[in-house]
């Protein structure tokens, strides 16, 4: 018989076992025994947030930028319900999060006790799995399983609900390694990649004269090696590549083979290539509705190959011709190997085959769909992102965003060259994601430049986390494209609701410079294009948290855009497009 240890200590033992170095949390009555135990575990640092949603997004930012699972610790009742948005966000974007929540003591469960809620019931649809620990002897095993479930297969959030009496109770600590069996065969990340399947893929690629790779967050989730393999695949084939919002950074954004992001606000060349291709190879993306637009007219003449780790992602929205259930990295490794072994001359022998296709793509590129009319009087939001990119691209910069127009401009105009540098809420579209996510990113990468490209409406939803940033001396930069509107809402209202700007204007915005000062950090404001560079440089060079109030043109819309119900080849390129084909004249690409 070993020494008996408490449930609270077991929690930390398992965290240590999984090499957790940071947890994001907020104390409360039902988790106090765990907080009491914190002092005995020096390798684990607790980051005190200001709201449990912030803990969740910070854990997401930490996970996405580091590739390790994010851990959060919240109390029962409101602590758990506040975490729900972040858990749902992580579920939609496949981010590994382990959420530990306190619960009222076992004997009070079901009595509507103080700060009681049905946490496992509430979080069941927004976690991969969750557990209510009713027996101290199950705790170690469940905590260990929680990490296994969160990080294997398609990653995602899990929750372990621990009643207060279980945190106090003592037992022997044993960690058995029987997870594989316990997960009913779900923990394995690798489907079977047969040579037969690889040859089918290669044969389809050889037959194709208009191929395209469409890659997504699965490449990022598979680890940095997958991104290297993807780059190798492009160099082996010479095929064009486009990426989803979540996949940005897996392939260099400034490479000529890269057509830019696709989808509702994707580039003209990416969307037209998706529409016109004869072979689409989807690697780790999920045919989201922001990507496909009208399903019936989505890429009507192409053969489709789909590689995904999650079998339920295959055939959910779009029927495909060849499906391979696999981790992206393993697949790419096998495919590249096969090409190098059996089809050494693929690139050259295929060059002629796809040369006309590249000419088509170049024609679409000539449209310069990301161009905009710049101004000398007001800062155009696109210009602000471009300047931010130019002035920070030589550092290894990490970008988070909120949700809305600024997010799309960031995705369009900030070019990423490495994976794990781009953290944005794609699936759930959570306004308020970027600031706490930046906190988590900076925790994982203390010496890197971390910028939240924000909108003023979004950032106010989780602004309280500036206090966290100041407490832990995290020099995050909150770069607000302030147009005083919920910009994307305003854009839809302008285009589709006869300019009835119902409740999308925020009167009485705070003075962000004063707000920064109130939090004890630095505020910077820019309103003219000619002062932008100097002020951005000032921001980058301050080793403290900064709120940057960038006053931009409030009427600017985000183009290009696929209007609702339209296929990919019917994009709006700019305001003039409502009436006629857009002309390049009068538009400058800055």
């Amino acid at each position, binding site marked *: 018989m070993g020494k008996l240890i408490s449930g609270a200590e077991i929690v930390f033992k398992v965290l240590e076992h999984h090499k957790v170095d940071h947890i994001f949390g907020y104390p409360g009555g039902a988790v106090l025994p765990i907080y009491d135990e914190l002092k005995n575990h020096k390798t684990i640092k607790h980051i005190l947030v200001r709201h449990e949603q912030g803990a969740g997004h910070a854990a997401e930012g930490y996970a996405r930028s580091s590739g390790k699972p994010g851990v959060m610790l919240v109390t029962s009742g409101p602590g758990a319900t506040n975490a729900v948005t972040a858990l749902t966000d992580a579920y939609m974007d496949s981010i590994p999060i382990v959420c530990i929540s306190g619960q009222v003591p076992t004997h009070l469960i079901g009595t509507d006790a103080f700060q009681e809620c049905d946490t496992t019931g509430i979080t069941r649809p927004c976690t991969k799995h969750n557990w209510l620990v009713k027996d101290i002897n199950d705790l170690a095993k469940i905590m260990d399983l929680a990490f296994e479930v969160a990080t294997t297969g398609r990653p995602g959030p899990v929750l372990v609900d621990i009643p207060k009496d279980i945190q106090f109770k003592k037992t022997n600590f044993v960690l058995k390694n029987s997870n594989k069996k316990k997960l009913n065969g*779900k923990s394995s990340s690798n489907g079977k990649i047969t040579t037969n399947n690889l040859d089918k893929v290669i044969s389809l690629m050889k037959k194709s004269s208009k191929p395209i790779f469409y890659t997504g967050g699965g490449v990022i989730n598979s680890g940095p090696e997958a991104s290297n393999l993807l780059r190798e695949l492009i160099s082996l084939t010479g095929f064009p590549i486009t990426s989803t919002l979540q996949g940005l950074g897996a392939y260099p954004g400034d490479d000529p083979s890269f057509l830019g992001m696709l989808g509702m606000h994707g580039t003209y060349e990416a969307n037209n290539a998706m529409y016109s291709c004869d072979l689409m190879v989807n690697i780790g993306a999920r045919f989201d509705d922001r990507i496909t637009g*009208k399903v019936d007219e989505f890429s009507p003449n192409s053969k489709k190959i789909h590689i995904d780790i999650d079998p339920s992602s295959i055939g*959910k929205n779009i029927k495909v011709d060849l499906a391979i259930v696999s981790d992206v990295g393993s697949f790419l490794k096998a495919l590249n190997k096969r090409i190098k072994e059996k089809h050494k001359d693929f690139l050259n022998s295929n060059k002629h085959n796809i040369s006309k296709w590249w000419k088509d793509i170049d024609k679409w590129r000539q449209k310069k769909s990301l161009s905009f009319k710049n101004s000398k009087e007001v800062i155009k939001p696109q210009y602000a992102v471009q300047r931010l990119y130019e002035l920070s691209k030589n550092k290894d910069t990490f970008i988070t965003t909120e949700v809305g127009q600024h997010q799309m401009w960031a995705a369009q105009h900030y070019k990423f060259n490495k994976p794990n540098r781009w953290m944005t809420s794609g699936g759930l579209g959570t306004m308020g994601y970027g600031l706490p996510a930046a906190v988590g990113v900076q925790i994982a990468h203390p010496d890197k430049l971390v910028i939240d490209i924000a909108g003023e409406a979004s950032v106010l939803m989780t602004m309280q986390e500036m206090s966290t940033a100041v407490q832990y001396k995290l020099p995050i930069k909150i770069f607000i494209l302030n147009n005083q509107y919920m910009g994307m809402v305003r854009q839809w209202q302008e285009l*589709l609701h006869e300019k009835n700007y119902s409740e999308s204007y925020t009167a009485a915005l705070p003075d962000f410079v004063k707000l920064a000062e109130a939090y004890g950090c630095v505020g910077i404001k820019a309103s003219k294009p000619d002062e932008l560079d100097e002020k951005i440089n000032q921001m980058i060079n301050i080793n403290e948290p900064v709120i940057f109030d960038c006053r931009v043109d409030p009427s600017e819309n985000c183009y290009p855009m696929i209007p*609702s119900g339209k296929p990919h080849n019917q994009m709006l390129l700019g305001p003039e497009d409502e009436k006629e084909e857009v002309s390049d004249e009068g538009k400058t690409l800055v």
Partner: protein
Amino acid sequence: MTKSKSAYSEPGKLGKSEHHIIVVWVDNEAGVLARVVGLFSGRGYNIESLAVAEVDKKKHISRITIVTSGTPSVIEQIKLQLKKLIPVHKVADFKRNDPNILFKELALFKVVSSKKNREKAQKLCKKYNAFVLDKSKNSFVIQVTALRRDIDKLIEILSPLGLVSTSRTGAVAMTRGSETFK
């Protein structure tokens, strides 16, 4: 064509809806039924009937039989989504008109009426493995096992004969022959 005001695309063409029986083997643990049922309600799938009980006491495996309807792609999603749930061991899917599958549903009827009507009612139930479980001066409770549509029909024809209460299980299913679903 009127301009769409939605930020979402319009629905595409729908496939034809068909009935399926989904059988799910799960770990019999707290909340497992809620996970399965919640998946159906959360993703907008139908449940026409549901039957569940532990079938392996040693391994604590329960067998859930769900009758559902949906387009082929929806049925495919139901299976794939169920397989993702951690406590789920395996999922079987049968078409309702599959001749290799046995389906049965059990129903109890309470009939309160005149002797003549009760006799008539009993006669109508006869071909569905009917057992009279309880009798009184002016009533009986009868058990039948039959297909869902037969029970539907029975309810219809027993109603004018004094049917006052109906209780029925969901359908359960099993393959014919010596094979079992792996």
